[in-house]
């Protein structure tokens, strides 16, 4: 089990990561989700032992890894641009880690065939890695990391360089492989679709801090800040002022809210207005349609007050629209 305790790291006096705590259990896949520049990659490299934290501990089964050099940690790392060895063919790339562990050559052969099969690259042994497509290269990189049976697998935006369809396929395969092998994994990405597909637990990283953690469903249904709601693109975020108990006044109207905690009158709150029409809601918005964009299975409709919604049927621009909405309280 991997345990991260109070990691702190600065870069040119600016704090890059601060106060990071979390656990990765057996068979669990954790996803670090955050915009570029949020320190995700640096963090992975610290776990891998390629960089050291300014403060805090990284433990494996309770043992501090600070004095364990990178090559003895037994943590596999898959890079965004694969980092395959250009002078070695597929077999030699995949068997690299096994040779480092002094496996016997017949065991190496069996294992390479096994992992190549696992990543759907049967028979690719003798190909040059420079001749492979992006997706194939990524599979080789994955096979290479899997081959020595690492205690932990780490992925640094592994699908960032691939096109969308390929990304989805590979993601599903990866999910299957992680599930079957039960290797704990940390997956770093800025793409929420990827994160929600692969992760058992998502950690949202913002300005070097974990701002929210939970299962994908948790995070999706209960965003705990304006930043999370906006970063995940959950819907319209509206600022409002509490006027009277559970009533809130905003620039788009006065609504009633249900909130976990009581608010004082006059307090400023932020509301999330999800872009889907809600059933059985008292809150209603009545505005003219300003813009309609066709989006395959739905229409993105923008009203003249700036709020947007997804509708099944196409309204006309200028038409008056009545939409029932749920007002969720953020923070």
């Amino acid at each position, binding site marked *: 089990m991997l345990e991260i305790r109070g990691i702190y790291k600065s870069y040119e006096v600016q704090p890059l990561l601060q106060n990071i705590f979390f656990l990765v259990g057996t068979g669990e896949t954790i996803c670090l989700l955050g915009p570029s520049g949020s320190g995700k990659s640096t963090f992975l490299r610290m776990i891998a032992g390629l960089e050291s934290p300014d403060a805090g501990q990284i433990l494996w089964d309770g043992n501090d890894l600070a004095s364990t050099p990178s090559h003895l940690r037994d943590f596999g790392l898959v890079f965004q641009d694969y980092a395959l*060895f250009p002078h070695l063919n597929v077999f030699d790339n995949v068997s690299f880690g096994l040779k480092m562990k002094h496996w016997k050559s017949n065991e190496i052969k069996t294992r390479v065939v096994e992992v190549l099969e696992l990543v759907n690259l049967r028979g690719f042994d003798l190909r040059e890695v420079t001749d492979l497509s992006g997706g194939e290269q990524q599979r080789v990189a994955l096979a290479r990391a899997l081959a020595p049976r690492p205690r932990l697998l780490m992925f640094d935006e592994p699908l960032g360089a691939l096109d969308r369809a390929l990304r989805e396929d590979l993601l599903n395969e990866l999910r299957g492989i992680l599930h079957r092998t039960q290797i704990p994994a940390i997956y770093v990405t800025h793409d929420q679709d990827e994160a929600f597909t692969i992760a058992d637990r998502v950690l949202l990283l913002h300005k070097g801090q974990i701002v929210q953690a939970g299962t994908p469903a948790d995070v999706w249904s209960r965003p705990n800040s304006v930043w999370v709601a906006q970063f995940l693109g959950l819907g319209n975020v509206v600022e409002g002022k509490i006027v009277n108990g559970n009533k809130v006044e905003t620039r788009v109207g006065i609504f009633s809210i249900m909130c976990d905690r009581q608010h004082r009158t006059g307090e400023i709150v932020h509301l999330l207005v999800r872009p889907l029409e809600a059933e059985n809601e008292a809150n209603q918005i009545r505005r003219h349609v300003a813009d309609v964009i066709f989006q395959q299975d739905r229409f993105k409709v923008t009203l003249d007050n700036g709020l947007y919604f997804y509708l099944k049927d196409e309204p006309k621009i200028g038409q008056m629209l009545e939409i029932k909405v749920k007002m969720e309280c953020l923070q």
Partner: protein
Amino acid sequence: MKSMTSRRILLWLAPLAFLGILFFYPFFRILAFGLNFNTLKSNNLQLAFHVLLFTFYQASLSTLLTLLIGLPSAYLFAHFDFHGKSLLRALTTVPFMLPTVVVAAGFNALLGPRGWINLTFMHLFSLSNPPIQFVSTLGAILLAHVFYNTTIVIRIVSNALSRLDPKLEQAARSLGANERRVWWNVTLPMLRPSILAASLLVFLFDFTSFGVILLLGGPTFATLEVEIYIQALQMLNLPVAALLAFIQLLCTLAFSILYTRISTRVTVQSAPRSAYQHKANNIREKVFVLAFCVLLFTFFIFPMLALPLRSVTRLAADRGQQTQVHYGLTTDYYTELFINRRNSLFYVPPINAALNSLGYAGATVILSLLLGFPAASALAKPGFFEKFLDPILILPLGASAVTLALGFIIAFGRLLISPWLVPLAHTLVALPFVIRALQPAIASIPDRLRQAATTLGASPLHVWQNVDWPILSRATLSAATFAFTISLGEFGATLLLARPDYPTIPIAIYNFLSQPGDLNYGQAMAMATLLMALTTAGILFIEKQRLPGMGEF
């Protein structure tokens, strides 16, 4: 951050110490020696002015002639597709790296008093004296310079030409410009920076040329380089030599700066390389291609062919019986290399010279790799320091070999007894080439590759063994070959620094060439042939290792 800085300092320590002691210290000694009231006298300055004038004169003339051959050749290579093109290209490239003694010996074998052409004429017309006076003329110097440097013009200009976007010329045509106007108003202006850069580089090489002028021109044609040598070793007038060396350094520095400025303007457009090339399809083009192919082929193959042929042919026209020439193939000149015929104290058999050369070359390879690796590693990931240190490393390239050697003599006069100064000087000359050969290869290994190996369980040693070395080995081999061939053929610095009892191959060739008699001449030819074979093999090897897309100069 801190550890990075200390690592950089560690990397730079040896190369900078080496340059400091062996380049900058001697350089300042030259300054101190050459620039004082005793040397800055009117007769010295007059001599300097005279020599400088001639140096400029011959360099300008050589450059013009080189352009005359080089520009049409560049056009030929950029525009046309013909049989034997790659062979012709290789043929024009090889001379650039041949040792000066080999080129001098080659021209001597072709046009010298004992060369093929003169002997043929003497035989045909029963002449008693060689009819063509080639050696010791300005023509010989110019011809050898053109032979050396045409490849520079071809490479730089044909590269620029073939990268010009043909759409620009098509656009000009569609706007109503005829062929000539397109050339004058579109093509030529876009080529100007590369032509200028090529000319400057050629001029720089002609300006600092030493071996060619000494061996083919003789002492009457004293350029700065030759005069430094004469003043230092024959007149034993070190202060005047230092004054001349200072002028030389100023000039080369100015040209180098100018060259760097211009070469940054040589823009690289990424039009497909072969977009332009086609077979000659009208009579005018066919004549042009054929004429230039023949011209280039003859010009480049004859001196290189004359030399080895002459080394196995007895064509002696001995004194007294000049009309009677003995013919025949012979290996005498080669077997003679292993015999010490004159039991003189100062005579060193050629085989010893060869052994010295190999020893010096080996030492140069080791030294320049030991110094080149850390410097190239630091330069591969340039930081704050490297912006300043990069040009410093290249400086010795601008200083001529003779100047470097003069600096050694002035700075370490007492140490001259040590034969070690020769490989040190060779290392100084070879180091910039070694660094340039290693740096792109080191830079081509991304850190992530090493990190990937590390996370797969490779210790730092294993990372070096399995990742760095396999990728670097090719570049290291070509860097080593560079150092080896440079050391093997180095003439200028060696002539000033080598002790008489430790000559190298080029020095031995020089000695043989300057002594009378057919046997001496033949031995010079034989040694030069061996040296040519060795260096040509080295050059071809480096060319083969060159990664695609790497810089030309």
